[in-house]
């Protein structure tokens, strides 16, 4: 259960699980949704696999991930997302800068 909490504590891994809720996806398709390097994504996938939250199926060079959540884990994912667990808190000036940047672009 500890590995499950560890896996769900990271917003990127939670986003991966939310994407997999819609349908099983390949590692490449999932990586396209995140502005991080492939080794970083592989590490995230490894944590999710270790916690048995995703199932990987290899066919040739492609690895397809599908969701493997129990109802309790699904509910925990929802709660963690709802309360933003693990999401870095930004300071007021940083938030204002982010809003300003969004307005100008």
């Amino acid at each position, binding site marked *: 259960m500890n590995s499950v909490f560890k896996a769900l504590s990271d917003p990127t891994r939670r986003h991966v699980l939310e994407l997999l809720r819609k*349908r099983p*996806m390949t590692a490449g398709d999932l990586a396209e949704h995140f502005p991080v390097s492939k080794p970083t994504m592989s590490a995230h996938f490894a944590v999710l696999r270790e916690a048995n939250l995703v199932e990987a199926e290899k066919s040739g060079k492609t690895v397809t991930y*599908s*969701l493997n959540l*129990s*109802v309790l884990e*699904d509910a925990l994912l929802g709660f963690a997302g709802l309360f933003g667990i693990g999401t870095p808190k930004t300071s007021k000036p940083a938030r204002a800068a982010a809003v300003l940047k969004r307005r100008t672009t």
Partner: protein
Amino acid sequence: MTTKPIATSLAIAAFMLLAAAALKYGQAHELVSAVFVTRMTQVGIGVVLALYGNFIPKNATRSRGPACTPSRMQSLLRFGGWSFTLAGLGYAGLWAFAPVAVANVVAMPLVAAATVGTAGYCGWAAWTCRWRPAAGDARS
């Protein structure tokens, strides 16, 4: 892979038998009332249903039906899991806290609704998968 779920199921079965024997013993020796025995038995059934419902999406992932695409199968398993878990918790909660007359009337239809809902969803998914695979399915 299959030994762990079997061991867990056997442990749950043993616990249920032991609990039933203990309740029967308690009732025979007038330690607990007949209503208490009925309530505890029904609560146990509800909790076990919720436990099995909890693991439906996890353990049944590999048993993909031939007619269903992975995304439909995944949503079907999630729907079934949530339905049976909530029905089981509702069943246990009603038998634990509601008046016996209310629990008698409401609890079983709750489980029946989950069963019918899941069976209906399963039938719909199988029917639609047969004619039209879901858009964006990664595997067939």
